[in-house]
């Protein structure tokens, strides 16, 4: 009876905190996100594509101003047009959001993650928060850069600010393409919502990743929702499609980035900015709840 095991001396200091949970998992997710090259490539594409496409679109619109018909002039929104690049960047955001989850399922690393933090909802929340925070910073930088670069492009092509109190009629009759300052009513909100649109989509992509657990499947589903769904809806009879067209995520993005005073032009086509943001947030929340429910229930 001498087989008493020697006492092990552990070199590890005591953990502070009660148990492995959200705090450590947040740090871990940030480490994982910043230590793969694909993250930085995605973020760089978001900025470059976002700002670049916006500048290109505004440059074309400014050059065509004199040829535009009255209704096209009336619908022109220099703020929303400056956010056009976000509709290219949104696909990269989807790839980023999905990969954060599905790359772990693809390699089996998700098992290691869930074994480190058995409270699985902490894993979901940490991934959403870290991806959301990173996309928020980059998307807002992109949105504001797009706005300022875009307005500079308009100015460079002879654009002028309409005097305060100008009406839609004034815009239609304006000799030069109109330019808005960030102080224009609704402009700041519209630009901020441009970035927020990408954050909500990142949540959606992340949740789809948890639901489908497969990279190709998740990204195609995400692209399908943003790109293919509107195509299908556009084929449907307009009397039928008009009632829910405005609830499509891409149209919610258009609604979110419109300047408030101009949304009435889109009555029936787009939701007002705050309602659009709320609906998209509800989509992201619903997908995240489903993702969390499945994550807790399913085998890893």
């Amino acid at each position, binding site marked *: 009876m001498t*087989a008493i*095991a020697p*006492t092990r001396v552990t070199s590890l200091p005591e953990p502070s905190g009660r148990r*492995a949970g959200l705090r450590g998992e947040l740090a871990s997710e940030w480490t994982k996100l910043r230590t793969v090259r694909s993250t930085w490539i995605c973020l760089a594409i978001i900025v470059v594509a976002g700002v670049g496409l916006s500048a290109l679109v505004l440059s074309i619109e400014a050059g065509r101003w004199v040829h535009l018909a009255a209704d096209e002039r009336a619908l022109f929104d220099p703020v929303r047009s400056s956010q056009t690049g976000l509709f290219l960047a949104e696909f990269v955001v989807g790839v980023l959001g999905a990969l954060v989850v599905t790359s772990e399922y693809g*390699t089996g690393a998700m*098992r290691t993650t869930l*074994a480190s933090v*058995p409270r699985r909802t902490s894993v979901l929340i940490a991934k959403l928060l870290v991806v959301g925070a990173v996309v928020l910073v980059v998307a807002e930088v992109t949105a504001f850069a797009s706005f300022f670069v875009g307005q500079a492009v308009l100015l460079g092509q002879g654009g002028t600010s309409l005097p305060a109190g100008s009406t839609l009629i004034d815009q239609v009759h304006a000799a030069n393409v109109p330019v808005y300052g960030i102080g224009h009513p609704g402009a700041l909100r519209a630009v901020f919502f441009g970035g927020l649109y990408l954050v909500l989509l990142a949540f959606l992509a992340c949740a789809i990743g948890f639901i489908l657990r497969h990279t190709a499947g998740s990204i195609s589903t995400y692209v399908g929702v943003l790109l293919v769904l509107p195509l299908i809806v556009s084929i449907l009879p307009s009397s039928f499609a008009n009632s829910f067209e405005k609830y499509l995520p891409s149209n919610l993005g258009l609604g979110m980035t419109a300047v408030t005073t101009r949304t009435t032009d889109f009555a029936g086509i787009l939701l007002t900015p705050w309602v659009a943001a709320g609906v998209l947030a509800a989509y992201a929340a619903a997908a995240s709840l489903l993702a969390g429910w499945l994550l807790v229930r399913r085998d890893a």
Partner: protein
Amino acid sequence: MCRPVGRSGLLGSIHAEPRALPVISAVGLSKSYGSTRAVDELSFEVRSGVVTGFLGPNGSGKSTTMRMVMGLDRPTAGSVTINGVGYHDLRWPLREVGALLEAKAVHPGRSAYAHLLSLAQTNAIPRSRVDDVLAMVGLEGVSRRKAGKFSLGMSQRLGIASALLGDPGVLLFDEPINGLDPEGILWVRNLLKSLAAEGRTVFVSSHLMSEMAQTATDLVVIGRGRLISDTSVENFIASNTESTVLVRTPETERLQGVLAAAGLRVAPGADGGLVVTGATAVQVGEAAHAASVMLHELSPQQASLEEVFMDMTSDMVDYHGLTPDAPVDGAPAGAPSGAGAEVGR
């Protein structure tokens, strides 16, 4: 000083009694996928201080069981606890249980260091420990390289490093020697033994009986998800091996008659020898001597662990190869392994 509940419990029990209480305890553990029962009413115990081998053919439910121990898969029935609590109730799981489940379960674009750091952060393990475990497994020189560029052997080492990260009292390894070169296999063997010698609980799955014979003290053997045996390696061999004696003589037919007359079970063996089952060499030698039969060889045979294991699980393997399973020339189950010493006249 308040140690995590599980660990202090483990060490406490070691001091209280030399023969430690079971650390991992499975009771009626079952897992079904549709109508397939991957794990069927499995009950076993794993104690600390020794290496316990978890043995079964491929597809017998070892990995599924490991995942249930880790709280990754939910049992259809039954339960498994570590130091008396379910995995989900461990407060700092990596500091109590370390596991190597899949060697390649790392983002191929992430460095070994970043991978381990991300794990350490989840359980408040200091950054310095990452360098320590990298040095322990011999990966310190390549810690900044992408894990996707690692060989299978290096990936196994990284997996072992992640298991050791929290300096846990319980270690689970799923097929840790897969893909390792002979040097690596020896390293893992010694590592497992030394971890156990430090008082840790070491539970290692393998489909190679010979490997477990060299490493493990205790054995949990399963086939088709069912428990076949839960005992020590020694007991397992003793109770599952029927000793045979190989005997050679120029007068084969006469000796066969003599031995049969003495009530021994005898059958023709390979190369004209005779195989006597259920008798000692002494009995065979005395019987031959009494009948004045000259012997050229008289050697006791011990079936190797591999043979015992193959024999026990042969009807438990789901996917047989195309090799004909008929025994050659009526040889006993498995060829004799002990090189028989020549016996003079």
